[in-house]
Each structure stands twice: as structure tokens, then as C-alpha cells.
């Protein structure tokens, strides 16, 4: 409906345009024709007026008028009059009734004019416009007559042959252009239409209601579909933006977690290699790279057997059976002498599975077990050592006893010596057993104090008695510096005895013959300070930080030559700490050693548990 109205308006406009153009063209044509007519008339009348009046009358006049009628009339000459000086018409060409149709004032103006005169008037009854040109004939200084020519202004025709041809050509080209443009637009519209429809079908939830063969829809329709498509697109864009944001957040979280995992792996003191099922390395941590002395980019995505040295391969690579079910297996030990000399590494391998239980790769872990191995070795050495320490006094006791029993020893002096040795060895065994019990209690965290009042006098006496025999054999003198008023303290008497005997025993062991040992006791406000000083070998700077460690034995050959369990000082230190006290050591190699025990003096109330 709307488009029909548009068509009508367009057609009207077109018609109006054509009419205006035709009008303008006709006006132009008329102006041109009248100009030509004026020129022709002026020229012809001027030419005729040059003739003597006699030549235009009589016989000559007829000849002249006939020629004029023959050549000029067809181009619009209506009449030709020649008047004499008095105004009498002496020759005339044209219809006989013409004279009466020409208005009188026109003739008057023409006859009385002394120069060329052009006048225009409508011819009565015919509706034509006539142009009259008049010029006086001048002879021997006076006017001898007048020539008048009347021309009809030709009516211009819009449909001249030339114009029709031109218009035909223009119309043809116009038509061709219109066709071309029309089909161009239709083609473009069809494309647009199909694009908009596919847009709709693609993006809208409900499929397009316009089904059937494609047809060129109106621009209106296409625009509407485009708008719909655009709004759907905008909606989709928003959704996409939102989901993009969600994805970015998720990605951020995931990459954060991934980084965390990588940092955890990299901070581990265990080598980790993760491979896929074809042994290609997917991840390797910093510790492992350091062990292999390789760069990450040299390892990642490379097959493990290609990048690991040949001798390490059996430990790292070949054990598919144990991981087939995703289990874990220990693959053995490996060394990295170039990067970690002297260390032993245990390799274990774990199969990695996906959700369905298929093996997707494995994780190889390389752990430094040097300390464990060393601890194991130390334990074994300790066991051998303790066995030796226990069996040595037993051996002495048994063999001496047998010698006495079978009567092999006859003289009383030697018998006495043997009995003494048996006693000393028994005490040595007892001390060792006590130390072993203490150390196992310390190990279990079960060493507790059985507190009671300890009289220092008795404590010192008992301890000296325990080491006196050994000292005497080496001609070592033991001095005691005790205050007049010996303090008492609260503590575990037996443990304190063990602590002091260990110090005194060490002093006897590691002091050469004819040396001197001093045990002094000082009572301070809250402390009882025991000091054991000797003139022994002393402790080297290398050994000093380790002397309280369990099983530690000096490498000094003079000290290593003397048997010992490496337990005494560790136990002593533990006992002193349990009493809330401190142990201190000062030593000068070659000069001697001084140990100080500071034991807090607790008030003891009778009845206190």
C-alpha cells in the first residue's frame, strides 16, 4: 500500500519534471526563432529599400514579387507592400484580404517612419503573430517610397525530428540504466535478505517463520530482520563477554594453582620427574635439574632415555611392571658424583592414572638417603662397638675366673691382682650397662628423675671410688677441692653419679700416665658447681662441637686407641639438662680439659614426693 503511494508520487514528480523541461525548451526555441526572424526581415527589407521605387513598380514589380514569393514565402513571408511617396500602394504580394486585417496604426507608423521600423501584431482571426519590417526608399535626397514586409512567427514544435531522435536515445539509455540499477539493487537486496535470514536462523532461538523459497524482500523487511539479528547478536556478545570473564577467572585460578604446584615441586628437596606413557618428560623440578646439571628446556618434551646418562638409566627408566597398576616401586639407588658427590639417592617410581584407570605416565622421585644410610651404618657400628665393649670385660672376668678356679694362679699377690681386675671389670660392665639403659631411656624419652636429697659429700665419695682403681693404674692423682660446708641438692642421685663418673672416667681414660685430675665443688646461691679438670690430651677444635652427640668418637689416633662407646658425654649432658642445669667445656689440646656442671640447688622439704 505504502509502496504504491510512493510509486504514484514518483510518477507525478517525473511528469512534472518532463513538463517543466518541455516548457523551458519551447521558450528557448521561440526566442531563437523570433531572433532569426528579426534578422532575416531586417536584412531583406534593407536590401529591398536600396532599389529605386520605379524598379518596384510596373512590370519589374511583378517579376520581383514572384521571385520573392518563390524563395522567401515558404520561410514565413506573409506579405510584401511597396508604397510611393504619397503612401499609395504600388505593388503588393499576399492574400487580397490581408490589408484589411492589418491594424491601421501599424501601417501609419511604417509609412511615416524615416528609418527601419520593426513592429509586432496579432493577425486578426488567425491567432498568428506577425512581424512587420518597414524601411523608406530614399532617392535624390528625399523619400520616394516605403517597403513593408510581413513575416509570420513560426510556432515552435516540441516534437521535431531531431529532438525525437535525441529523446529516443536518452530514453533508451535511461531505460537501460534503470534496468541495470534495478536488477543490481534486487540482486544486492536478495543477498542482504539471505544474509539477514541466515543471521536470524543462526542466532535466534525460534527458527524463522518465513519459510519457503527465498524471495527478494522489501528493504523494510530486510532492515527489520537486520535489526533483530543485531539485537540478538548484541545479546550474544554480552553473554560471550560474561563467559569470557568467567573463563578468564577460571584460567587465573587454574594457572595460580598450577604455579603453586610447580613452586611446591620446585621447593622440594626431592628430585621429581613426571613423564607421559611414552617416557617423554612433562615436568622436572629444580632439584632434579640441579642433580642432572641440565637446563629445563633441554629436558621438557624429550624422551627420558635420551636425556639421562646411560649409567643412570636402569635406575630411572626400566621398570614398567610395578607401575602397570598405578603402584609404587623402589627402583634402586643411584649416584650423582658430578653434582652431589658422596650422596646416595633412592629412586622410586609411581604410575599415574587417568579417571578411567589407564596409565598415562609416571612420577619418578629421587630422594637423598645419604643420612639414612649413614645413620644405618652408624647404628651397625654402634652395635658392633657396644658388643665389643660388653664382651671385653666379660671376657676378662671369665678368663680370670677360670684361671683362679683351675689353680693356674698360685701366688697370692697375683691372685689378689686377678680378683681386683675382676672387680674393676665388673664395675666397668655395670657402668656400661647403666649408660646403655640411660641412652635407651633418653631415646624413648623415658628418662625421668627420681628426686631425693643428695648429699654432695656422698656423691663425690662414690664417684671418686668408682674411678680410683683406673687412675691408680696410670699413676694419675685425683685431687678434690671441696668447701668446708658441703652443700646438699635435690636430684636423682644415681643419675648424677652416672654423669659425674662419666666425666671422671673420661678424665682418667684420656689423661696420660702421671697426670692429674681435680674435682672441685663450689656452692653458689642457687647452684652447685662441679668442675672436673684434667691434664689430658685435650679436645681439638674439630671435635669440640660434637662431643655431646651420641656415638661420636674422635678421629684423634691417641683417643681412638682408647675404647669407648661414644655415649658418656651425651648421657651426662642429658642428665644435667634434666636437672635444669648446664654443662660447659673448656679445653686446650695438649694442656687438658675442664668440664663444669651447674646444677640448681632446689629447696628440699621433708615429705615432698
Amino acid at each position, binding site marked *: 500500500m505504502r509502496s504504491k503511494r510512493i510509486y504514484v508520487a514518483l510518477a507525478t514528480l517525473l511528469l512534472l519534471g518532463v513538463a517543466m523541461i518541455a516548457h523551458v525548451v519551447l521558450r528557448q526555441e521561440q526566442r531563437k526563432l523570433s531572433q532569426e526572424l528579426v534578422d532575416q526581415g531586417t536584412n531583406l527589407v534593407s536590401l529591398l529599400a536600396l532599389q529605386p521605387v520605379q524598379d518596384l513598380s510596373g512590370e519589374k514589380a511583378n517579376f520581383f514579387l514572384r521571385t520573392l514569393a518563390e524563395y522567401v514565402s515558404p520561410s514565413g513571408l506573409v506579405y510584401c507592400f511597396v508604397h510611393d511617396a504619397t503612401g499609395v500602394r504600388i505593388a503588393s504580394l499576399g492574400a487580397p484580404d490581408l490589408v484589411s486585417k492589418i491594424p491601421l496604426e501599424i501601417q501609419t507608423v511604417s509609412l511615416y517612419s524615416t528609418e527601419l521600423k520593426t513592429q509586432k501584431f496579432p493577425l486578426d482571426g488567425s491567432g498568428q503573430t506577425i512581424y512587420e519590417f518597414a524601411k523608406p526608399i530614399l532617392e535624390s535626397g528625399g523619400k520616394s517610397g516605403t517597403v513593408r514586409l510581413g513575416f509570420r512567427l513560426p510556432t515552435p514544435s516540441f516534437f521535431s525530428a531531431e529532438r525525437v531522435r535525441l529523446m529516443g536515445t536518452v530514453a533508451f539509455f535511461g531505460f537501460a540504466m534503470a534496468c541495470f540499477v534495478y536488477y543490481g539493487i534486487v540482486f544486492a537486496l536478495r543477498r542482504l535478505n539471505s544474509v539477514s535470514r541466515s543471521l536470524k536462523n543462526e542466532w535466534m532461538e525460534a527458527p524463522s517463520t518465513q519459510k519457503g523459497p527465498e524471495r527478494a524482500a522489501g528493504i523494510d523487511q530486510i532492515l527489520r530482520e537486520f535489526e533483530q539479528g543485531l539485537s540478538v547478536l548484541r545479546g550474544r556478545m554480552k553473554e560471550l563477554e560474561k563467559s569470557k570473564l568467567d573463563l578468564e577467572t577460571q584460567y587465573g585460578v587454574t594457572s595460580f594453582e598450577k604455579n603453586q604446584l610447580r613452586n611446591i615441586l620446585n621447593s622440594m628437596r626431592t628430585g621429581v620427574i613426571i613423564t607421559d606413557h611414552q617416557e617423554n618428560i612433562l615436568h622436572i623440578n629444580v632439584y632434579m635439574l640441579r642433580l642432572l646439571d641440565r637446563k629445563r628446556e633441554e629436558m621438557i618434551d624429550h624422551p627420558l632415555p635420551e636425556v639421562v646418562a646411560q649409567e643412570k638409566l636402569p635406575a630411572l627408566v626400566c621398570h614398567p611392571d610395578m607401575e602397570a597398576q598405578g603402584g609404587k616401586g623402589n627402583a634402586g639407588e643411584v649416584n650423582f658424583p658430578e653434582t652431589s658427590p658422596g650422596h646416595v639417592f633412592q629412586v622410586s617410581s609411581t604410575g599415574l592414572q587417568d579417571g578411567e584407570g589407564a596409565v598415562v605416565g609416571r612420577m619418578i622421585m629421587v630422594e637423598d638417603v645419604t643420612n639414612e644410610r649413614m645413620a644405618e651404618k652408624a647404628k651397625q657400628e654402634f652395635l658392633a*662397638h657396644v*658388643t665389643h665393649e660388653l*664382651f671385653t670385660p666379660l*671376657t*676378662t672376668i671369665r*678368663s680370670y675366673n677360670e*684361671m683362679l678356679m683351675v689353680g693356674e694362679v698360685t701366688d697370692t699377690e697375683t691372685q689378689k691382682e686377678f680378683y681386683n681386675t675382676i672387680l674393676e*671389670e665388673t664395675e666397668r660392665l655395670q657402668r656400661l650397662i647403666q649408660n646403655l639403659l640411660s641412652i635407651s631411656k633418653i631415646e624413648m624419652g623415658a628418662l625421668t628423675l627420681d628426686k631425693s636429697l643428695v648429699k654432695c659429700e656422698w656423691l663425690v665419695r662414690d664417684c671418686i671410688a668408682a674411678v680410683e682403681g683406673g687412675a691408680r693404674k696410670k699413676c694419675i692423682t685425683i685431687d678434690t677441692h671441696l668447701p668446708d660446708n658441703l652443700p646438699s641438692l635435690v636430684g636423682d642421685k644415681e643419675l648424677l653419679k652416672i654423669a659425674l663418673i662419666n666425666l671422671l672416667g673420661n678424665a682418667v681414660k684420656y689423661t696420660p700416665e702421671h697426670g692429674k685430675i681435680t674435682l672441685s665443688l663450689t656452692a653458689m646461691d642457687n647452684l652447685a658447681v662441679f668442675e672436673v679438670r684434667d691434664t689430658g690430651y685435650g679436645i681439638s677444635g674439630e671435635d669440640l662441637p660434637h662431643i655431646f652427640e651420641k656415638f661420636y668418637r674422635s678421629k684423634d689416633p691417641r683417643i681412638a*686407641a682408647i675404647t669407648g662407646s661414644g655415649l658418656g658425654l651425651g648421657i651426662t649432658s642429658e642428665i644435667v639438662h634434666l636437672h635444669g642445669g648446664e654443662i660447659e667445656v673448656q679445653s686446650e689440646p695438649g694442656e687438658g680439659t675442664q668440664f663444669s656442671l651447674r646444677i640448681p640447688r632446689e629447696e628440699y622439704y621433708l615429705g615432698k614426693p
Partner: protein
Amino acid sequence: MENRRRILVVDDEGPIRRVIEMKLKNRGYDVLTATNGLDGLEIIHTEKPDVVITDIMMPKMDGKSLCEQTNSLKQQRPFLTIVMTCRISPEERSWIARMKNTVLMEKPFSPSKLLEEVEAYFRR
């Protein structure tokens, strides 16, 4: 007596050296003593004892090293080595099997048994 049998006792424990020395001397043997494997090795080279009685765990050089270093000497001049040890483990047994003319004696030992072992060797 020029031809008295010579026995070397190597042990870092004085009382043990003392009792073995006494037991053997009472039977008329010539007894030499050393307190560690290194000294023992020197005496074996210089004094050429007929029997060496040695402890395992000793400073400077242990009994095992002493045995291993003297094993080749036994080809030219055979002598018995008695190794005294606290625990006889399978490793020690297989080790001793590789040593020529060497026997193990478990600690604590009986001096009489030790003497029997020595005399049995000399009777051979």
C-alpha cells in the same frame, strides 16, 4: 731354649693380654704381645711367631687387616692365626674361609680352650 714356640698375642685390652700371656707362659711358650694390629704386623715380620692370637676390634689396624696382610706370608712360612671375636656372623665365617690357617674363637673365651687350640696345632 732356642727352639721354644713363639706365640704373638695382639689385643688392646691389657687384662686379656695378661691372662693369655700367663696361660701360655705357664705351658712354656715364648709369648710376644702387641696392643694393636700395626705393632703386631711388625712383630710378625721381625719375630716370625708360630701362632698369632688377635682381637678383631683394635686401634690403628684391626685384626681383619692384620690377617689379610699376613695371609700371603703363610705360603713360605705357615703359622696359625686365631681370631677372637664377639659374635661369629656368616660374613665372618665366609671371610675366615678365605684366610689360610685361620680359626675363629668366640669371646668370652676359655683360656684352657685357647691353649687346646694352640697345642692341637703344634701336634699336627
